[in-house]
């Protein structure tokens, strides 16, 4: 082997394997972005209704369902903090109280901000 040749950096087989899956997951993430954006918009509207006291049972259940889906999905793509925020939102929608409902607006805002770089 010639001397003074820089050693080529190569991944181990397991690193190549993980990178391959990461690339596939990144592609899936891109394809599901429109759905994610729609869900974030719906959550924001539902949280706004909660703040103004206009939340009804239908929109409450819708908010709970959307937050539940997000709490289960976001972590798969590595967005664990966002998934935890979605879980907090879900729990508030599941059993809302006058003390917890006002928290929804801030939580949904935090959720969007946490994901902002990937939207």
């Amino acid at each position, binding site marked *: 082997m010639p001397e003074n040749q820089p050693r080529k950096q190569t991944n181990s087989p397991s690193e190549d*394997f*993980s990178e*391959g*899956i990461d690339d*596939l*997951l990144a592609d*899936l993430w891109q394809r*599901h972005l429109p*759905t994610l954006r729609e869900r974030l918009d719906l959550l924001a509207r539902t949280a706004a209704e909660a703040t103004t006291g206009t939340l009804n049972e239908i929109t409450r259940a819708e908010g709970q369902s959307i937050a*539940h*889906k997000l*709490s*289960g*999905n*976001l*972590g*798969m*793509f590595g967005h*664990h903090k966002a*998934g935890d925020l979605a*879980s907090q939102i*879900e729990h508030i929608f599941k059993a809302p109280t006058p003390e917890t409902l006002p928290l929804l607006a801030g939580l949904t805002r935090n959720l969007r901000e946490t994901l902002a770089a990937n939207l």
Partner: protein
Amino acid sequence: MRRILIIDDEDDIREVAALSLEATAGWEILTANSGAKGIDIAVAEQPDAILMDVMMPEVDGPTTFRNMQQNPAISSIPVLLLTAKVQGVDQRRFAGLGVAAVLFKPFDPLTLADQISEVLGWSKNSHSEQPVPSEPAV
């Protein structure tokens, strides 16, 4: 080659789970977006295991599982429920069902196949399972 049926109403859950199991374990993946369709596919295709979401519209996972148990054609196929982290009442609800396992969302795509293999007693990355030949009678 192991064949897994994934039943979930969420497109991205089905796709990520399928991607994960195909890429990490080489399993063949079947999918359904509802319990009813899942039962039809299970009867027709006889998968080695079923990974099924708990919260689905119309008929949820536990109800679908009970329906599967009533069908002799598929009642012996191990079922793993997939759900968000549960507490208290939900744990008790699943304990008496008789499913093979309950796995939690979000799952790690890199280790999902390992989790399934572990609970079902499968060898890791089993691309094919050959029955162990029995000892000849003496």
